[in-house]
């Protein structure tokens, strides 16, 4: 009798402790390795704010496969070597999901380091979730099973920009101005190649490179654009190079569209302001109209809470990870990675598919232009990007040369 009571007691104790463990399940942690201090923190902090904001909401919905999502920021000062130290720290802290976006040099370092880590530690694998390093090779010749890209790469975006130009018969002369480094050259080369294919009659009236981040006065470049009589300008500029370029264009009355990759980088809208209206075009995963009331609500809430604008693709990335974890019924990186292959998800911008072949997200893209008096202004202003054109995921897609090696 005593034994039976004791047994009952022991069993109930086990059950209770089991319940307690389920209630506070171990968190699944994501490391954000991005610049979080210094001048470049304006590109890392918004992502951190967005991730924390989205994680909070997802945790209310039960977290990833029952595990609460936790975001840990690691400051890499946008330096590749420092990123590897931070990566090691994150792995030591038991984090198996690494998020990074800013700088393809950092992306390259993380990609090769994570590949090697997974090869050398088969029991302890790590996934690399890339939300903004858009060097095409990451999902082509350098593709890896452990890397997932949640942004369209340079060529995909250029594909849509050139489609838009090609469809508009008024555009006859295109001017290319880019920063003189690998990314700028990639933009210029793919623009020339695609324009030649799509509209051989279009004339490239200028293909200029300027030093990266060193030009204080863009007027010589602008007068070149003006005298070339260009109808449209394509630029991959970011940071102060885009701010000063647009301001200078406004001062000299160059009223042609500037098609940009990074017109929405934090700080740009505040600095460019009125001078960018009807001049800065942006190719991105969403637009500033916030037609979806739920997303609009979140934009308002996030800006109020953290002082940063909504970052749609970062939010979509975390939502997708949660959904994939739920579906895989696991938070094990390998299981989640296998589920992510071919995974589909509906986000703010439309239907997303993580292509299994190369782990490149296939998503709709939007071309938008900066407007004043928008309902939901960016950076606390009244300016934001108003949709001009929408491209389906099928339209934006490009073939890949990836030959993926998968783990058993």
């Amino acid at each position: 009798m005593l034994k039976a009571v004791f047994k009952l007691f022991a069993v109930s104790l086990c059950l209770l402790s089991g319940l307690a463990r389920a209630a506070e399940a171990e968190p699944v942690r994501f490391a954000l390795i991005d610049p979080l201090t210094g001048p470049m923190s304006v590109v890392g902090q918004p992502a951190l704010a967005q991730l924390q904001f989205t994680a909070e909401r997802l945790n209310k919905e039960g977290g990833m496969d029952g595990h609460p999502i936790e975001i840990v920021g690691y400051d890499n000062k946008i330096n590749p070597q420092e990123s590897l130290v931070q990566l090691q720290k994150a792995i030591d802290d038991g984090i198996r999901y690494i998020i990074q976006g800013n700088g393809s040099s950092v992306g390259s370092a993380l990609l090769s380091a994570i590949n090697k880590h997974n090869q050398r530690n088969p029991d302890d694998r790590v996934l690399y979730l890339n939300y903004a390093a858009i060097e095409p090779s990451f999902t082509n010749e350098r593709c890896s099973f452990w890397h997932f890209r949640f942004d369209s790469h340079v060529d995909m975006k250029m594909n849509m920009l050139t489609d838009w130009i090609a469809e508009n018969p008024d555009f006859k002369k295109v001017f290319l101005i880019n920063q003189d480094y690998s990314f700028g050259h990639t933009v210029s080369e793919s623009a020339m190649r695609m324009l030649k294919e799509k509209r051989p009659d279009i004339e490239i009236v200028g293909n200029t490179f300027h030093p990266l981040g060193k030009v204080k006065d863009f007027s010589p470049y602008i007068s070149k654009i003006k005298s070339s009589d260009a109808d449209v300008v394509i630029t991959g500029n970011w940071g102060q190079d885009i701010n000063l370029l647009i301001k200078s264009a406004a001062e000299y009355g160059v009223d042609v569209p500037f098609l940009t990759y990074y017109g929405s980088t934090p700080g740009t809208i505040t600095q460019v302001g009125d001078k960018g209206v009807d001049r800065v075009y942006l190719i991105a995963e969403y637009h500033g109209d916030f037609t979806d009331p739920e997303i609009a609500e979140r934009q308002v809430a996030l800006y109020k809470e953290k002082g940063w604008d909504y970052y749609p693709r970062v939010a979509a990335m975390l939502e997708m990870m949660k959904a994939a974890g739920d579906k895989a019924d696991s938070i094990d990186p390998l299981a989640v990675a296998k589920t992510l292959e071919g995974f589909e998800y509906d986000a703010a911008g439309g239907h997303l598919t993580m292509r299994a072949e190369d782990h490149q997200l296939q998503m709709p893209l939007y071309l938008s232009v900066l407007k004043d008096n928008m309902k939901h202004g960016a950076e606390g202003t009244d300016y934001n990007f108003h949709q001009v054109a929408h491209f389906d995921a099928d339209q934006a897609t490009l073939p890949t040369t990836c030959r993926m090696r998968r783990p058993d």
Partner: protein
Amino acid sequence: MSLRLSPWRALAPWLISLLVLLVIPLLVSSNGTFSIINLIAINIVFALSYNMLLGQGGMLSFGHAVFFGLGAYGAIHVMNLIGDAGYDGQGFWAHFPVYLLPLVGFATGALAALLVGWPFCRRAGTAFAMITLGLGELVAAGSQMFPTVFGGEAGVFSNRMVGPVWFGLELAQPADVYWFSAFWVLLAVFAMWAFTRTPLGRMSNAVRDNAERLQFIGYPPRNLRFLVFIAAGGFAGLGGGMAAVNYEIVTPESLGLLTSGLALLMAAVGGLGVFYGPIVGAIVVTVMNSLLSDYTDASILYVGLVFLAVVMFAPAGLGGGVEQVRQSWRRGELTRQLPGWLGGAVSVLLIALGLVASIELVYQLSHGRDKLAQVLGLQPDPSSPLVWLGVVALFAAGYGVARASKNYREARS
């Protein structure tokens, strides 16, 4: 100092260093700590090589990263050659072990310094600083334009687990790389110390102190500077070679002005006048750079403040401070002088605490609380005047102790 040291006294620092390097793996187990230790080792070599120029040769360089970066590029390209040769196991590179890559880095760095250095070394001082600044910018800008050599923005990457394996050391984890780093840092530090003992090393001090007189007695300062420049370039390249093996990637950032500035920062914080100063500086700066940002978003500000404080109040650096204590101990004056110094240290600590507290409070007002505040156990409300009164009290106490200990020191000397 012309004190003749007994061989044991001279050997002691090396034996202690060796012992520390051997004991570290017994105390440390996490790969993250090992990767920071490896980074410290690289930075020690880099900072010491920089001090060959600035501290010993009197040449202020803003382009030292060029040799570090080129050494790293040389090593990583050779690493790729070893990897490619590994497929058929033929040729020279198939038998070249990865452990020797720092030598390749040394050769690359020294060669680069040999090729560009001659015109630079005619003058020291501002002219030299300006020219090296130009060189640094030139190479950094050029590196973005030759993607086949420098790998463009993405850099050149490789795999260190190639080529013959020695002593069963596979270099898979940071803990394995530790042995590699420990060996090379000890060897490089010893070699650079030995360099200071050579006639050339002695003469480089003379060039720093009075180039005109040296010219007069028949040693052309330009030749001496050039030789030191080559040696410093070589050792920076050796550090670069270690970095190539450690990171398995080299990007154009490693050639740039920021990396050059890091060398200056480490050497200056540690102390230019003492041989081991840059070692101390490399440890402090690396740890601050890699760990401080975990606790506070204002980490860069703190690094800058430390640099400012050292340059303004302790121009001999942290190593200089240690040396001062050591000298006084040797003269048997330590018991007399120590209270004054301790008082100074306490005042620095108090003022630093006040400064940190006020920075964190201001930061809290604008951005919300970060982790450092929690670590220090501070949960104050920045809007309460009492808290600010506390900060003022810290400053006042620090100032008071500083005055008192200064008077004390002056009375005793």
